[in-house]
């Protein structure tokens, strides 16, 4: 027996070492290395540094557009998602029409349509001039209307993931349909879809670059304007890429941390 033990024990660390190597997040190391190289160039090269500082001026607007649009599209998405699962056929069909309409058109096209056709149309019907709504506001309206439809589908999936028995139990206790939704179904549904909502927040951050086509001076637009006079395509677009990559990386790590903490709470 003793001999067998001696034979088995030395082989074990090798196995753990190997699986450890396979499990190690090498992708993160590679991405971080790229980021560090770029950061070093920004620190030691004045041309890179200037471009970095230029794009940095758009960071605030990128974050502002992303956060405001995301919060508002959560509200719209919840309303549409509830309409999507409503028993009332009129409500349900209205919600489905909207969702399918939005999901059937490319995001870039919708940004043009909403900003330059829908918003001016609505402004005119209220007797306002065409330029009454700022471009940044139009960008936010467009992103909210688009993401509302996508987030509605997330909420719908979340609501449908809760078994029918939960609604029956709530109703059999005398709760109304609305009360059962509010206190029993939605709290569970929202918890189930938090990872999916986190993904959409990251997607929103990336898609906020699309509103550069409206002339909103977020990071992408600032970079484009800078390039049009400096012609430093390589430096500018690599640094712009670095900005988005770092932001999404930080955001996804934060979201993972948040999820782990929520799971620990039970």
């Amino acid at each position, binding site marked *: 027996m003793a001999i067998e033990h001696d034979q088995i024990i030395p082989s074990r660390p090798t196995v753990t070492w190997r699986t450890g190597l396979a499990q190690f997040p090498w992708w993160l190391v590679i991405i971080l290395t790229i980021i560090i190289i770029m950061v070093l160039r920004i620190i030691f090269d004045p041309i890179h540094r200037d471009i970095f500082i230029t794009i940095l001026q758009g960071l605030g607007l990128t974050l502002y557009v992303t956060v405001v649009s995301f919060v508002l599209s959560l509200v719209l998405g919840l309303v549409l998602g509830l309409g999507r699962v409503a028993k009332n056929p009129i409500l349900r069909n209205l919600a489905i029409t909207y969702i399918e309409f939005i999901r059937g058109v490319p995001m870039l096209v919708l940004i043009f349509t909403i900003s330059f056709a829908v918003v001016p149309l609505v402004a005119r019907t209220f007797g306002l001039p065409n330029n009454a709504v700022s471009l940044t506001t139009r960008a936010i309206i467009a992103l909210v209307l688009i993401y509302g439809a996508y987030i509605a589908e997330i909420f719908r999936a979340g609501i449908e993931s809760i078994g029918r028995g939960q609604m029956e139990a709530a109703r059999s206790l*005398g709760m109304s349909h609305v009360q059962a939704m509010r206190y029993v179904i939605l709290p569970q549904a929202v918890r189930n879809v938090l990872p999916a909502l986190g993904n959409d927040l990251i997607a929103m951050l990336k898609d906020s670059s699309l509103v550069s086509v409206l002339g909103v001076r977020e990071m992408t637009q600032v970079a484009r304007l800078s390039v049009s006079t400096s012609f430093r395509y390589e430096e500018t677009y690599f640094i712009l890429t670095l900005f988005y990559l770092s932001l999404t990386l930080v955001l996804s790590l934060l979201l993972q941390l948040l999820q782990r903490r929520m799971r620990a709470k039970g």
Partner: protein
Amino acid sequence: MSRSASQPMILIENVSKYFGAFRALDQVNLSVEAGEVLMIIGPSGSGKSTLLRCINHLEVPDAGRIVVDGITVNNNEAHINAVRAEVGMVFQRFELFPHLTVLENICLAQQKVRRRSRRESEQIAWQLLEKVGIPDQAHKHPGQLSGGQQQRVAIARSLAMQPKIMLFDEPTSALDPEMIKEVLDVMLALAAEGMTMVVVSHEMGFARNAANRVVFMDQGRIIEQGAPEAIFGAPQHERTKLFLSRILH
């Protein structure tokens, strides 16, 4: 609206229910007196659960009439809620709310439906947890409890609404054998207190100790009914005999 003394607690008249072309209930007539403990047995698909679920309108009958405590159950939302307030229901899979603690599970409907204060509802919840024997689990979430404990919380949650009738839909079928007794003990105590109960279950021990009447259903119909000794001891119909021979080994 209230029931007169001579009326039964639950009156079911000519109730039929279809799921597509499948006839789940076929002109069922049944009445349950106040304080009676009625047990419904029968093979799966016989309509026993559907009948139970019609009583608090979780299923809507296609034909016939159901009167609960003097209130006719129809599509009127106010009538449905009035009936549901009087009728507690316990499910096979417990259906506790997993995002709430045990205490919150028992308090939620008290506060939102009965409009009780937090203090009052918690006081009632503690009394009921004492009654079902698990006051020490009050601050846990359902997922941390055993099946038997979860089902006892579910019973307490229903009782907190102070119902006149309790419906049990196979309350012990999802439980490990060693946990069945703790749930049956709570049900026996409830029956001894005079609660009107309709129980869909095959627990012979409960039938013998608590049931006043046993109803045997098959293919959406009531085949025969009577005292437990009569149904289990001397069943009249072939189908009842066949069914009992299968479950009584």
